[in-house]
């Protein structure tokens, strides 16, 4: 190949230099790698293609080495990481045909910080596409959001914009948004986190993959027209923010859920028709990534004719078309003999479609536009030789030791916790999401895990998203473990059998050894917990460079988890009955290191986070499901932030009843009520089964203690109490106060 093959000096295209490469986020080493690979100076379009393929967001160059260490296999796994989303087996449908659950979580942090509504909306759109690209109908969405200090001047607008954006997209698309989490912490002042998860259902024998097959097959473009929005978005998301974050707004895409809805229906109809060989959505780095992915996975080359690409505006260059992140677009390889059928489906849904290329036998990515070859690159090498780094890492600095406990009575402490933005009711958020559409939502948001019926059956999926960044910052390995353990616990507390997870790893700049240390530690913890709890990681996403002016976010590896319930009767409610006794399962030592109590009340991040005993987690989790099956409990709730006091209060609020939690004779009140020891649940039971219940729990090798009784109109912690009505009002008002609603 020589310079004449690719016209690198078209008048509209600037000459490629190392400085231009640097402006595309490529290091000097990486640019040299390109020169060595192709043996000449790349064209402007080619430089764009390399920058798209080799940025952190698309190449996982800093994280790959560590992601490989995660457990990804198990009898339930149909497709692990590497496809658009993970796929697990969840048993048969009503006719006995095997069903699969397709799910993934992905971040849209950088765009959401720049333009909260569209950033969050397109994050939802992207993850929904990942799921229906595989042939699954999305049946649930979740999201995990982190914002800065509630008092920070940007927080209110970011919170409102992100929540509206998620709702605006998911509600119109028609997927119920059923769960998630929301936190505030000053470490997110300069970088909010928007992690969106989508869950879909498909038949296990009808999953679609991205690998192209067959030579000379038409490559078909389907969906919205290509515009200039999002050009360079993935590269933007692979860098820290400085003071110029606002200037990056043009790199954010604009979402159109109505087109996405039509794209969903058209794709599912097309797949059912048998016309689709392979399919890939256009996400980050749009046409570039999707075409390379399809060719690379299929061991084929791809030829693209950009003159055929439906464009929103005139005069778009090859560079812009290859890097556009316009939303609601798909690329597919179709059976040529089915073209008429395919066209009828696209026409029915009024979607643009065009044959924009074909598969070729050579290992080549050939891009033509306006009569010239704009790119001619070795296709497999584009992804195969992407840089991979073994970045240096160091363990984090240990947290300061746990100091004196606050001088406060437990009821007052609970009152403050429950009125805080972090522990107040999330109702203000989830009421803006349509969580009922599709008429299969069995357990709505606000419980431990959402439960969504598998349509047409009496079985259900349980879904949750969890992480405790305070723990991850203090001791990353424990934090990683705890994130998985809490997700496991939330699933067990709703009666589900945990099956698998998706991870969304949000960290700062990996070029800093302490950030890389957080990453490595969290991965180790996640890996250990997923292995011990038989919840393999089947999909995920890494978001690095969540830093502004050198200040990183807390390490936030969000774990999205899926479990299954074999019968709707297995669902364990969170609300106990009047007169029920609350029984605490699991060992309590009263560990307040890195606790919600210290952080919320006094801004102290002290001590070690509570250790996670994975064997004990499993034992007590399985026990909770068994207790339900044996008819011994009426309700359950997991213990996490805020310990026993917050868990008991949340159960009471869910039931609209008071609760009296007994003090512990030998433990200091704050330790007993607010300790965050892991592996614990509060279960509710009728008096007549208590004796049998305690025997059953001890028999399973789990510590048990009677904790209190449900009823009355106050929340009592030992000798102290708060009126239920006051607690309920404070709980309800916490978030609207932040949002100014």
């Amino acid at each position: 190949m020589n310079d004449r093959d690719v016209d690198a000096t078209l008048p509209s295209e600037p000459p490629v230099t190392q400085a231009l490469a640097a402006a595309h986020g490529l290091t000097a080493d990486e640019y040299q790698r390109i020169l060595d690979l192709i043996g000449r100076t790349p064209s402007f379009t080619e430089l764009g293609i390399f920058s798209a393929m080799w940025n952190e967001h698309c190449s996982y160059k800093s994280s790959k080495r560590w992601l490989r260490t995660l457990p990804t296999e198990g009898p339930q796994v149909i497709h692990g990481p590497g496809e658009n989303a993970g796929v697990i087996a969840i048993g048969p449908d009503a006719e006995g045909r095997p069903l699969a659950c397709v799910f993934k979580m992905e971040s849209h942090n950088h765009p959401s910080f720049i333009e909260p509504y569209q950033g969050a909306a397109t994050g939802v759109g992207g993850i929904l596409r990942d799921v229906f690209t595989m042939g699954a109908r999305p049946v649930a969405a979740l999201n995990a959001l982190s914002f800065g200090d509630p008092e920070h001047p940007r927080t209110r607008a970011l919170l409102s914009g992100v929540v509206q954006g998620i709702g605006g997209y998911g509600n119109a698309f028609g997927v119920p948004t059923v769960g998630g989490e929301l936190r505030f912490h000053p470490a997110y002042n300069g970088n909010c986190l928007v992690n969106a998860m989508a869950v879909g259902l498909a038949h296990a024998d009808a999953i679609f993959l991205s690998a192209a097959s067959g030579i000379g097959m038409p490559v078909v473009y389907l969906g919205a027209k290509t515009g200039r929005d999002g050009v360079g978005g993935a590269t933007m998301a692979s860098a820290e923010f400085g003071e110029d974050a606002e200037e990056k707004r043009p790199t954010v895409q604009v979402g159109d859920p109505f087109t996405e809805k039509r794209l969903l229906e058209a794709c599912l109809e097309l797949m059912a028709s048998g016309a689709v060989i392979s399919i890939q959505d256009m996400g980050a780095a749009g046409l570039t990534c999707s075409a390379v992915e399809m060719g690379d996975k299929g061991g084929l080359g791809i030829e693209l004719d950009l003159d055929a690409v439906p464009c929103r505006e005139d005069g778009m260059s090859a560079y812009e078309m290859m890097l556009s992140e316009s939303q609601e677009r798909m690329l597919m390889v179709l059976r040529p003999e089915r073209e008429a059928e395919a066209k009828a489906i696209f026409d029915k849904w009024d979607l643009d479609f065009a044959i924009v290329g074909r598969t070729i036998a050579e290992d080549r990515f050939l891009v033509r536009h306006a009569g010239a070859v704009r790119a001619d690159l070795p296709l497999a090498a584009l992804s195969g030789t992407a840089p991979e780094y073994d970045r240096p890492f160091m363990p984090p600095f240990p947290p300061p030791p746990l100091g004196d406990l606050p001088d406060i009575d437990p009821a007052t402490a609970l009152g403050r916790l429950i009125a805080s933005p972090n522990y107040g009711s999330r109702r203000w958020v989830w009421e803006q999401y349509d969580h009922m559409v599709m008429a299969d939502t069995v357990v709505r948001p606000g419980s431990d895990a959402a439960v969504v019926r598998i349509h047409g059956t009496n079985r259900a999926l349980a879904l949750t998203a969890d992480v405790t960044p305070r723990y991850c910052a203090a001791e990353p390995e424990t934090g990683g473990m705890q994130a998985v353990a809490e997700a496991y616990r939330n699933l067990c507390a709703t009666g589900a059998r945990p099956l698998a997870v998706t991870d969304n790893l949000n960290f700062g700049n990996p070029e800093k050894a302490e950030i890389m240390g957080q990453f490595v530690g969290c991965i180790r913890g996640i890996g250990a917990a997923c292995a011990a709890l038989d919840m393999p990681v089947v999909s995920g996403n890494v978001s690095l460079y969540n830093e502004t002016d050198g200040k990183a976010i807390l390490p936030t590896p969000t774990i999205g988890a899926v479990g299954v319930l074999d019968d709707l009767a297995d669902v364990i409610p969170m609300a106990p009955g009047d007169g029920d006794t609350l029984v605490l399962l699991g060992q309590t030592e009263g560990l307040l290191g890195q606790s919600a109590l210290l952080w919320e009340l006094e801004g102290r991040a002290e001590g070690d986070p509570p250790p996670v005993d994975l064997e004990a987690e499993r034992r007590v989790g399985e026990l909770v499901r068994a207790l339900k099956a044996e008819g011994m409990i009426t309700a359950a709730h997991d213990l996490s932030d805020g310990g026993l006091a917050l868990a008991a209060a949340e159960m009471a609020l869910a039931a609209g009843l008071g609760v009296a939690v007994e003090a512990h004779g030998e433990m200091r009140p704050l330790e007993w009520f607010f300790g965050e020891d892991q592996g614990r649940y509060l279960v509710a039971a009728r008096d007549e089964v208590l004796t049998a219940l305690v025997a059953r729990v001890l028999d399973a090798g789990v510590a048990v203690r009677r904790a209190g009784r449900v009823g009355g109109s106050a929340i009592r912690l030992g000798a102290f109490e708060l009126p239920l009505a006051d607690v309920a009002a404070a709980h309800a008002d916490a978030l609207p106060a932040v949002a100014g609603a």
Partner: protein
Amino acid sequence: MRAAVVVFPGSNCDRDMAVALGAASGQAASMVWHKDSALPPGLDLVAVPGGFSFGDYLRVGAIAAQSPIMAAVREFARAGGLVLGVCNGWQVLIEAGLLPGALMRNAGLSFLCRDVHLVCQAVSAFTHRVDRPIRIPIGHHDGCFVAEPEALDRLEDEGRIAFRYAAPDGTPAAEGDRALNPNGSMRAIAGVLSENRRVLGMMPHPERLADPALGGADGRLVFKSVLSQMETA
């Protein structure tokens, strides 16, 4: 009961509506594509479901009202057929000229998905089995019902206010009571009947709580009303 559900490209409660109709009547509903110009013969009921028919980028329901199928729905209604529009379906029926008033952005400006309590104060084929207050969810951004005072008076005088937002005990909500009348609808109106009482538009979704497994089945009363009407007719 022979029912059809109209499907626009952005409908997203079409399946839910068909499931609820099927469960109530034991007969599968026909799905009718918006580009069709005729309804299946022999229908007892046409349902226009919720969703975002054409994305709701313009005035909600305005484009859907121009779809070919809506001419057939208008004709069906004119001939005395039963037409039920829920949520976006009500918005479409208003735009199609089959029901009075308008549905504006919610008073709090936010999309709202929550259970509401409704009291039925009208006699109609859709409501005669609704003999107690019911609890079903809303899920909308544009559900604030408005009309001229004279038009509202007329609706009241003619007994065409099918549902009002209410307290759990059935006491109608005050217009300004945002806890009970969450979208701020005038006179807390949640559902309206046509002059001949054969067309009903309502914002809350009876099809979303028509199955005890989902935590409530009050919505079934609406479908059972229609069904028993068929049986006695």
